[in-house]
């Protein structure tokens, strides 16, 4: 395991710098670009004295670097403003809706990764044959499909025309009351498992099917394409040919040798596909009325609720940087050739 402590420390310091960068950009968006930043903070219909108070609170009469200092301080203190829509502190809203989004994105992401690697390998082994062509076409369509459109189409077909899958909400409210289900961690799968509440678990899973399918399309397409092209190149390497000539069955060559070479670059690309998944969550949660961060920011966009929009986006950007750090560390751990 070639990961040294200095590497970790260096990366974590770098993460801190990246978070600072994210905040500087959001500061420019909220305080420098708008003509009257105080209106973004309190709302367009605020009274004169509210606006005056906001000007003082945001220190808009002071030099820009002082404003930036207090902006950063407010962020780290958790003062992200009050949402106009929910009338609650933005940070509180985000923390309550985080588990829903994590449950959805992690499920979609894991499924996309597993199915993507398998399909990619199948395509590579059958390079140029029918199976390869079909899988390649699937991957191109998956990577090109507009998530918001796919979500609407699936909802129309499976919830309205043939109502086999319920759409909207994470769980049926009447079921919650009927079975006495209590959200503890707000990860509903976990909560229902802890309480051994099978009806709620089934309902939660059923309601996740359509959003997960919609959300996993882009990372699925990306993973198939990546795995396929890496595997095709690896299969051309001399060692792979040698192993086959040696008499090793192809499946064994693939499983024992090729997979190792393929998996590292695919993992390196996971960070980016995670980025696309969270962006997709913004639209998918809005369409399926799935109350996570995506739904929160989406509703904020539709009602011009600026503290919530910016708070949500900055939060997601920070999480994204964190995921990229984790992906890099896993990549370095799997592939010892990666230099620090």
């Amino acid at each position, binding site marked *: 395991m070639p990961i040294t402590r200095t590497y970790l420390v260096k990366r974590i310091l770098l993460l801190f710098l990246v978070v600072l*960068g*994210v905040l500087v*950009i959001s500061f420019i968006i909220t305080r420098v*670009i708008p003509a009257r930043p105080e209106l973004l903070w309190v709302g367009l219909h605020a009274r004169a004295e509210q606006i005056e108070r906001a000007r003082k609170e945001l220190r808009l009469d002071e030099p820009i670097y002082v404003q930036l200092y207090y902006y950063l301080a407010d962020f780290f203190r958790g003062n992200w403003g009050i949402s106009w829509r929910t009338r609650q502190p933005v940070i509180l809203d985000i923390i309550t809706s985080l588990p829903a989004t994590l449950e959805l994105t992690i499920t979609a992401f894991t499924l996309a990764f597993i199915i993507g690697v398998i399909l990619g390998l199948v395509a590579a082994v059958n390079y140029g044959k029918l199976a390869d062509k079909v899988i390649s076409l699937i991957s191109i*369509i998956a*990577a*090109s499909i507009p998530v918001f459109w796919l979500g609407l189409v699936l909802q129309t077909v499976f919830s309205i025309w043939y109502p086999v899958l319920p759409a909207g909400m994470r769980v049926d409210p009447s079921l919650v009351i009927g079975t006495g289900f209590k959200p503890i961690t707000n990860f509903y799968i976990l909560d229902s498992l802890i309480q051994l509440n099978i009806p709620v678990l089934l309902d939660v899973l059923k309601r996740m099917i359509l959003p997960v399918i919609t959300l996993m399309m882009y990372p699925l397409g990306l993973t198939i394409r990546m795995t396929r092209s890496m595997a095709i190149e690896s299969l051309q390497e001399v060692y792979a040919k040698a192993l086959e000539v040696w008499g090793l069955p192809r499946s064994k060559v693939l499983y024992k040798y090729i997979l190792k070479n393929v998996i590292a670059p695919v993992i390196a690309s996971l960070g980016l596909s995670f980025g*696309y998944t969270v962006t997709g969550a913004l639209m998918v949660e809005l369409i399926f009325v799935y109350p996570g961060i995506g739904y929160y920011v*989406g509703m904020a966009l539709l009602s011009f609720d600026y503290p919530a*929009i910016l708070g949500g986006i900055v939060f997601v950007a920070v999480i994204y940087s964190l995921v990229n750090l984790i992906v890099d560390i896993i990549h370095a751990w799997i592939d010892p050739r990666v230099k620090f």
Partner: protein
Amino acid sequence: MDTILRDFLKFLVKRPLYTTGFIIVVAFIIVGCIAPYILTKPEDAWGITYDLSRAFQPPSLEYPFGTDAYGRDMLNRVILGSRYSLIIAMCVIVLALIIGVIVGLVAGYLAGVTGTILMRITDMFLAYPPLLLAVAFASVLGRSVLNTIIALAISWWPWYARLMYVSVNSVKSALYVEAARVIGLGKFTIMIKYILPNSLIPVITQAMLDIGSAILEASALSFLGVGVPPPIPEWGRLISEGWVYVSKAYWITFFPGLMLLITVVGFNLLGDAVKEYMNPRLRNIAAKR
């Protein structure tokens, strides 16, 4: 150039899937260019008038894509929408390319403190997930075609700056650059005359491959209500307008989305074709089979 194009077309013809992509892209560009002149109901397309008596007509011979909540013919709106998708995507790519190339060129060639600062700024932008930064900018800038282009270009250029930076770094140690420096040419002249033309190809190629994604992201912005304002019939906008009526009039969202899907698939297929054509190793493997 002519022979390369002919060679590429020959390469395309042998691969039906790539040919399909090529045809889709050409058709999209042609329709986008001539859209205002082939409309049968221009007032419907531009959304100037409305006629509630023919609202929510399902697809028929007269209205192949149906009509929307205001009785406008969806086919006409979708045709005009292609023009907006084309213009927005092209402007985003060109604007991002200009910023990205300049930043990458300066950062790569000057290196030192300037280079480090420029690349750290680039990294700051890359720390946001794709599209989210554009959403943030667009929400503050307000809805308009120009603001959509600006918001997307702001979130797009860092990718090109990165690519350009890497490309410049591999070019700048070449012998002809060394020679230019020895004969006493200035930094600026070397940068413009020798480094720029020789490091541009990878960035331009990538930019061409990105047109499909640019179309997709522009429509996502409009879908979220921070892109182009009504009554502009941009495809994402059309889908978002039909969203409320999806249970009683599926066609309002279905057809614009289908066109969006086909167009993006076309650009991605063509992109793959270009990639395979330019990667001789991949082509050789293919030829052996």
